[in-house]
């Protein structure tokens, strides 16, 4: 059975603008799935619908057998602990140290009081240090995040997601603001996490070549609909051109439709 399944998901903003139209696909446990498409094609909206950071207007989303859209507030929090999220802008608390930011990943498991006071168990701290070590940030543990480079910040973001002990991680353009060398390091880490830890990855990307190199499967998105869903090898130049380069034919298509 698929870990994540979307059925006919549609999202309208303000009842008019359609960000997603009738999106259906499934992701198996341990898969590395890339979502490609030009800016504004609905990649971010799609990822955010999966953990209900954005409420989908219509459709069914299920994760590990749970119907995501029917969860109560408390159940939704529990679900989110199992789904990590990584952002383009890292979204760290810049003034806090690396270890504090990483431990934020445990807040979903906390009661109100212990979470507010920031009480973490010995095991949680040990695990956080371990993960920071795996990501090669040993020397930065007590550094404030505003002193880190972009690549280091993104690794802190990954560590925060990993410390959640998730089954799946959603990555929203994790390398869009990094230089090619740093981007490769980040992608290698993500690839390792998927292969060795068995964590499912759903990742939105701008760079087609990166998507082709790392993913098990590529989903091509255009104006909120799936144009391609299959193996990287099946993604021909014509398909890519269709996903990205159809802006010029758009007015004609609109007139025809």
């Amino acid at each position, binding site marked *: 059975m698929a870990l994540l399944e979307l059925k006919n998901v549609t999202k309208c903003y303000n009842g008019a603008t359609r960000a997603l139209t009738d999106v259906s696909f499934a992701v198996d446990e341990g898969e590395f799935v890339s979502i490609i498409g030009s800016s504004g094609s609905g990649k971010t909206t799609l990822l955010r619908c999966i*953990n209900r*950071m954005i409420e989908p207007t219509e459709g069914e989303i299920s994760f590990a057998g749970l119907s995501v859209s029917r969860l109560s507030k408390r159940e939704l*929090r*529990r*679900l*989110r*602990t199992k*789904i*990590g*999220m990584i*952002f383009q*802008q890292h*979204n*760290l*608390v*810049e*003034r*806090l140290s690396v270890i504090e930011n990483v431990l*934020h*990943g445990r*807040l*979903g*498991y*906390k009661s*109100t009081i212990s*979470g*507010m*006071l*920031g009480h973490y168990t010995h095991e949680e701290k040990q695990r956080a240090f371990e993960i920071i070590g795996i990501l090669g940030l040993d020397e930065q543990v007590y550094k404030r995040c505003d002193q880190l480079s972009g690549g280091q910040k993104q690794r802190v*973001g990954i560590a*925060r*997601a990993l410390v*959640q002990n998730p089954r799946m991680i*959603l990555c929203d353009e994790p390398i869009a603001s990094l230089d090619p060398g740093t981007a490769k390091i980040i992608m290698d880490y993500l690839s390792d996490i998927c292969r060795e830890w068995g964590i499912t990855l759903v990742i939105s990307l701008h760079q087609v070549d990166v998507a082709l190199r790392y993913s098990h499967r590529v989903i091509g998105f255009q104006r909120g609909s799936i144009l391609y869903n299959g193996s990287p090898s099946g993604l021909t130049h014509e398909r890519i051109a269709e996903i990205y380069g159809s802006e010029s034919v758009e007015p004609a298509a609109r007139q025809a439709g």
Partner: protein
Amino acid sequence: MQADVFTKRRKSALLLFGLLAALTLGSAVLTRYDVARGLTSFFRAFIWGVTSFYPDGKSMRRLPEILTKLWDTMLISVASTMVAAILSLFLALAGSRTTRVHAFFTVLARGIGSFFRNMPLVAWAMVLMLAFSQSSLTGFLALFFGSLGFLTRAFMETFDEVGEEVVDALKATGAARPHITSQAVLPSSMPQMVSWLLFMIETNIRDATLVGLLTGTGIGFLFDVYYKSFNYHAASLVVIVTVIAVIAMEGISNSVRRVIL
């Protein structure tokens, strides 16, 4: 085409200047303000200040009394600022877009903030005088209400600036709202909040002099007494001591700011 843009800009600048000039002239005429006399009396006031408004040897004997009153005034300022800060922290948390629970509380908190901020300090002092007569409590409360309004607004904007990004990230980990507030929003805003707090204490020491003058407490009252008994030397000493205190306070808070930012 491009020249048009510049002509237009010059025209609007000219228009603005004309409006300001008209406003100034209009209000001068309406209030029968004589510019020439205003300037000359400023000069005369300066002469008077130099010749009679300075501390002399006799007034120095009053220094201990002045310093105790100044100390009282400073303590009242700090106390009222801190108490106001605690209350406005909660108001700001309820009112900020980043931390709010419900839109209703936002309107309520912003309303309370606006009301206390826009009511002049002098008006507070007058109103409170009727209720509590001349006592330290009156001064304390007047400063407290003013600070409450200002700090609520300042804290609220500080929280707003934290931005959705971090809040989103923690929400995605499954963290609840109180977690996000205490672990992400407050740590991010702390330096800015301390900075506003120090600013408020400085301002309150300055304002305490005025409030004291009205409510008959602290250093302001002392100034009033000396001034009305024509003891200008002692009165000038009060002013100098206050200015020194405010500048010292500013120096301290600037160095604190440098350390925490």
